[in-house]
């Protein structure tokens, strides 16, 4: 059997395993092509973890990832619930809401700059109708550490993804259990929390896992729309890689590996928590 699996195993180990091993080894001081080989050497991690800015960057990274995942989830649930109901213009809407899925992130970022910046469309409209005196008086949304621009782009792109996933799950679940609950006397809130939510939970978990994993490692949006130093970890890593001093690439690798470790730890605990919840309510 192993022999038959060899081709796919080879591809997998070279593509994923190889890259992973190389990244970990570099972060531990193995880079003879730069004339650096102090393997195994924890000093890169030490330097990274010892600096306050790393933890600030980690905090920002997690903040953007968690807030945008949360907002996209709530909006995705609401939209998916609306989609399984009948409303005027539904067929048009079914195409419209998927649009951000097909538009690249960079275009979304450009849209954010055009729309939300000081001097962007919205600020000009505000100035035009007289809400503010000049477009420059518009509150700063982009390039702050609150990251509203980053979060907006993530939410814009990922809400359709969550909606699509949950809509499919809801179609599978059907309306019958909700109707049964209504006939038994449950109000809308009781139906949602008691009947619908537990049934779409697997869809919620998988879609949030995916978008959170993306958000935590995303680079373009925080790079363009972020507030500058301290940057998010992917941007920090990129700055190391892009530095004139190429030996800093090892520091960059340590950043990437740290990010991967933290992300895996978070996702793994999330999944473990969900699994234990499933077991507690008796499903397995």
């Amino acid at each position, binding site marked *: 059997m192993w022999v038959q699996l060899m081709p796919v195993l080879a591809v997998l180990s070279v593509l994923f395993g190889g890259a992973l091993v190389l990244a970990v080894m570099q972060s531990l001081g193995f880079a003879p092509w730069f004339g650096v080989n102090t393997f195994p050497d924890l000093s890169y991690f030490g330097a990274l973890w010892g600096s306050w800015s790393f933890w600030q960057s980690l905090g920002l990274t997690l903040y953007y990832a968690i807030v945008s995942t949360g907002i996209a989830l709530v909006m995705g649930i609401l939209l998916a619930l609306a989609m399984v109901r009948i409303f005027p213009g539904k067929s048009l809407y079914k195409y419209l809401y998927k649009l951000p899925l097909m538009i690249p992130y960079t275009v979304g970022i450009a849209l954010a700059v055009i729309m939300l910046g000081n001097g962007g469309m919205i600020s000009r409209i505000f100035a035009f109708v007289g809400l503010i005196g000049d477009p420059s008086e518009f509150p700063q949304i982009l390039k702050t550490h609150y990251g509203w621009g980053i979060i907006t782009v993530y939410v814009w792109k990922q809400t359709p993804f969550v909606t699509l996933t949950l809509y499919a799950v809801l179609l599978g679940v059907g309306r*019958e*259990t909700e*109707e*049964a*609950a*209504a*006939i*038994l*006397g*449950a*109000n809308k809130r*009781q139906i949602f929390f*008691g*009947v619908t939510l*537990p*049934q779409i939970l697997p869809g919620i978990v998988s879609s949030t896992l995916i978008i959170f994993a993306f958000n935590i490692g995303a680079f373009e949006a925080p790079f363009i729309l972020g507030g500058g130093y301290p940057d998010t970890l992917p941007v920090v890593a990129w700055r190391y890689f892009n530095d004139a001093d190429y030996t800093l690439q090892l520091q960059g690798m340590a950043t990437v590996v740290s990010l991967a470790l933290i992300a895996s730890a978070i996702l793994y605990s999330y999944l473990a928590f969900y699994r234990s919840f499933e077991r507690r*309510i*008796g*499903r397995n």
Partner: protein
Amino acid sequence: MTKVQLKGVRKDFGSFTAISQIDLDIESGELVALLGPSGCGKTTTLRMIAGLEVPTYGHILFDDDDVSEVPVQDRNVGMVFQRYALFPHMTVEKNVMFGLKVRGTPSGEIKQRLEDILDVVQLEQFRHRFPAQLSGGQMQRVAIARTLITNPSVLMMDEPLANLDTKLRGEMRRFIRELQQRLGITTIFVTHDQVEAMELADRVAVIFDGVLAQYDTPEALYQRPNSVEIADFMGANNIFDAQVSNGVAKTAFGDLQLDTDTKPVRDGTGRVLLRGEAIDLLLGEGEASQNVITGKVTAREFFGATVNYTVDCKGETIIVNEQSRRMVDVGQDVWLTIQPQRIWVIQDAA
């Protein structure tokens, strides 16, 4: 105990009319079947009574109170769905308690009523199981228990026997009938299966294309359908054109004497309905004196307890159904006879 009335109820979905107009009176404590082919509007009717759909026109009355606009949560009805619609993430116990919990019933009372109802549906040993771990019959009993624990004024069931195998079907039929009579709860169920309707119901409302075609007891529907469509739907196969005059129906295979004292007929065209089991199949000429039809057996279908003979009578095909106490061979000449009171004549309304 609740009397249910539908008065001039109509339901449109956009440009599609599911129900054109239905008037229906269901007595308190009665068990009524809504019978019809799929797409005839019977499920829509049930959903309107439940409150899941609002009628476009007309009124639904419970004990003479108009409930057409009462939201489903406040209507206090019970519904057993065709695929049961149990909550898959809850145990049997939690499924059954759901209706009382959401109504804010005190937990002591919930516990008490849970024990009572689990006893009624005999599910005590399955109380901690999940729906996925139950058989079809058990799931249905959970669905019934979940509904009955809330003491609904009307119980509704969508195709209650459709998803069960033959043996379980009989068991569930007796269970539902017995439960319904014990609780005296007004019960309405939907089915496309005439056998299921006859097995269970006190009265059957036949719905064709959104219109109530006939509303009668199972026996009347079976023996005395008021249209060929209903006869056909109730599984009749011997329907023949006839010319009626002076109490005699002239058919292609001979004259049939009718019993006009109990079943008055008009002179003119009509259709005669001969139920297969009402026909006697004789092997000798002269054994019967009245309504004798000569023919030849062309096919035989053996069903175990009963047997169907296809008899060719002067170009018409008559199906005779009898207990399989004997076997008549294909190709044999036979004489059929039917008593006048067993013949039903379907005539268009004057």
